[in-house]
């Protein structure tokens, strides 16, 4: 790909973009190493792009991402408790892309045409690809939350389940909440992004309230019959650190939200909140459906875990939270690992080599229960015989014995290292 196009793309003029991309996507300009388009520069996509450039420098890599900067979901609950700034979670993409020879297009993807192997951008321009990597994360299924179907209502009830302005909005509401007020959060039925995340959030909101509004309360309405991840560690922390502050109510699915009154109706009770945080039910980012990668009626994408190719659409690979990867959790760490596996598989593909048949994934999820203490769950996953599933490697899974300050330091180091791995 020539420099001229790269410069113009960086200028970001939609009109110029439209004409030039279309013109360049002719066979005349096709690079020798193959063209890969990566949609989404989160934990999966950013890792895949960077490692593909490292392992196959001859491959032309274009990343399409609407945001100018990465904002980490992991550790964003610490913004609520004052343990981290949003700025410390934010990493601009521009220098990263230039440094690794990645073409970055700051735009939204509207559609995918798998027949012609094209990605259609919001500007109307399109990009041709030989292989497409979708790392779209999750979309919220607000249609499943009566009362929050429209955006005006959603704006009144922050989810803060994608880090950034939503995180700041929830923190601002906490600051304005009266002492003696009630923070109500709702948790959807599993699976959702970051299984321990809601319980970490309850802990860190309690940490903030204990310090600033000691008469306030946290009520957790969980659609699940119990804490989904690290149950014993969370229960102990709540009992010892925040006695009588967190009121956990399992098997209590949300039925309706009144966004103006900040009231919720569950299957068994009505509640009014001073601050309301609804974590909506989730499904694969919608571009996966538009690309034809989803089975009818299924929320997550089925892939072959050797190279993450979609079971349904040729030349499309899907990674990260959007995949049906149970028992592996929808975590940033797992998406990072999947990004490397797909990068290696694509590097092999373009070099005409066989792909590696035994990729192994690891996962680590740290959870903070205060600004100073954390614990972790870690596990290793292998690909099943058929390639279409993951399984827990024998004896690989475990959680911390106790919460500790040492693990809080390790958790911060983990974040620094893995951000550097994907975006350094």
């Amino acid at each position, binding site marked *: 790909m020539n420099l001229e196009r790269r410069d113009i793309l960086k200028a970001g003029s939609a009109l110029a973009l439209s004409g030039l991309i279309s013109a360049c996507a002719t066979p005349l300009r096709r690079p020798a190493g193959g063209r890969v388009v990566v949609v989404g520069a989160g934990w999966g996509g950013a890792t895949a792009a960077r490692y593909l450039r490292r392992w196959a420098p001859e491959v032309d890599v274009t990343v399409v991402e609407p945001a100018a900067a990465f904002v980490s979901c992991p550790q964003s609950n610490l913004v609520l408790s004052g343990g981290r700034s949003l700025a410390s979670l934010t990493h601009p993409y521009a220098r990263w892309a230039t440094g690794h020879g990645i073409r970055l297009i700051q735009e939204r993807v509207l559609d995918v045409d798998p027949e012609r192997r094209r990605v259609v951008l919001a500007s109307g321009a399109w990009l041709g690809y030989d292989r497409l990597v979708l790392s779209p994360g999750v979309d919220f299924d607000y249609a*499943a*939350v009566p009362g929050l179907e429209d955006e005006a209502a959603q704006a009144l009830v922050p989810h803060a389940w994608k880090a950034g302005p939503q995180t700041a909005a929830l923190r601002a509401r906490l600051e304005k909440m009266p002492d003696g007020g009630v923070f109500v959060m709702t948790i959807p039925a599993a699976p959702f992004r970051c299984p321990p995340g809601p319980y970490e959030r309850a802990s860190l909101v309690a940490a903030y309230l204990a310090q600033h509004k000691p008469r306030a309360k946290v009520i957790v309405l969980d659609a699940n019959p119990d804490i989904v991840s690290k149950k014993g560690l969370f229960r102990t922390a709540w009992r010892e650190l925040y006695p009588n502050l967190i009121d956990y109510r399992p*098997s209590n699915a949300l*039925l309706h939200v009144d966004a103006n009154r900040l009231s919720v109706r569950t299957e068994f009770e009505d509640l009014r909140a001073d601050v309301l945080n609804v974590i909506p039910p989730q499904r694969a980012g919608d571009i996966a459906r538009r690309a034809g990668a989803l089975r009818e*009626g*299924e*929320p997550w994408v089925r892939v072959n875990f050797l190279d993450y190719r979609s079971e349904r659409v040729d030349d499309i690979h899907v990674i990260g939270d959007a995949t*049906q990867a149970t028992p592996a959790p929808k975590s940033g760490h797992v998406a990072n690992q999947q990004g490397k596996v797909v990068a290696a598989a694509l590097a092999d593909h373009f070099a005409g080599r066989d792909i590696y048949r035994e990729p192994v994934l690891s996962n680590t999820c740290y959870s903070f229960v205060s600004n100073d203490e954390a614990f972790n769950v870690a596990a290793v996953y292998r690909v099943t015989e058929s390639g279409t*599933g993951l399984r827990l490697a024998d004896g690989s899974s475990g959680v911390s014995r106790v919460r500790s300050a040492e693990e809080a330091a390790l958790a911060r180091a983990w974040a620094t290292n893995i951000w550097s791995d994907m975006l350094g």
Partner: protein
Amino acid sequence: MRIGGWMLSGAAALGAPAARASPLDQPRVRAIIESLFPARPIESSDGVAIEGPEITDDGAHVPIRLRVAPSGSAPRRIALIAAENPHPLVATMDLGERLVGPFSLRLKLARSQSVVLLAVAGQRLYGATAFLKVVASGCNPGQEATPPTDIGATRFRHDPPHDGLADARLLIRHPMRVEQRDGADTLSRPADHITQIEADIEGLPLLAMACGQSVAADPYLAFQLRAPRIGETLAIRWRDTQGRSGDAHFPLGI
């Protein structure tokens, strides 16, 4: 809350020449049906069907809805069978006149498999099947977990009635732990689950439900209640395999 991607697989599945053999022909399913409803032919009806999500991640918690409204008489007894679970009979329910479907409940599935619904109405036996997919098995005994401190806590709520029928929900906190076996013969830890739930309104039976270990944790039943009136009381009683039991009373009417 709506769950994305529900499918409906009902009467049509019975007669259709499907790729899978009908679960009704499996010997262990036939034996259960014969013991519950001896010597009755199984008919299909548009009003009898199982609805469930296309796929469920965690087989320990599979939400389903049972439509039990054949034309003619109202059903008085229904049974639910998970053909390939270690203990396939999920539950039977005897239905009082004021208890009306559809019924929503949550079950455990050891693997993707066919589920069978049977409903007796008048002198006839209706059946429906659905194939439900799960990713992770719901019948793993798992770690030794502390049972909830509020075991047996009972919740009930009904909405205002429409056309004489009120949506109602019942939940009893209970881990519903499956048994653990070392090899085929040695029971290393017995099951711990509710065996019986009974409900009546002012002494008139509303529901008698017999539960196996294939009912999900925190047994849940959503149904419609005919004409709840102020002044009436709903009484719930339950007992489990460990000898625990309890009762709870809820005033009706809004």
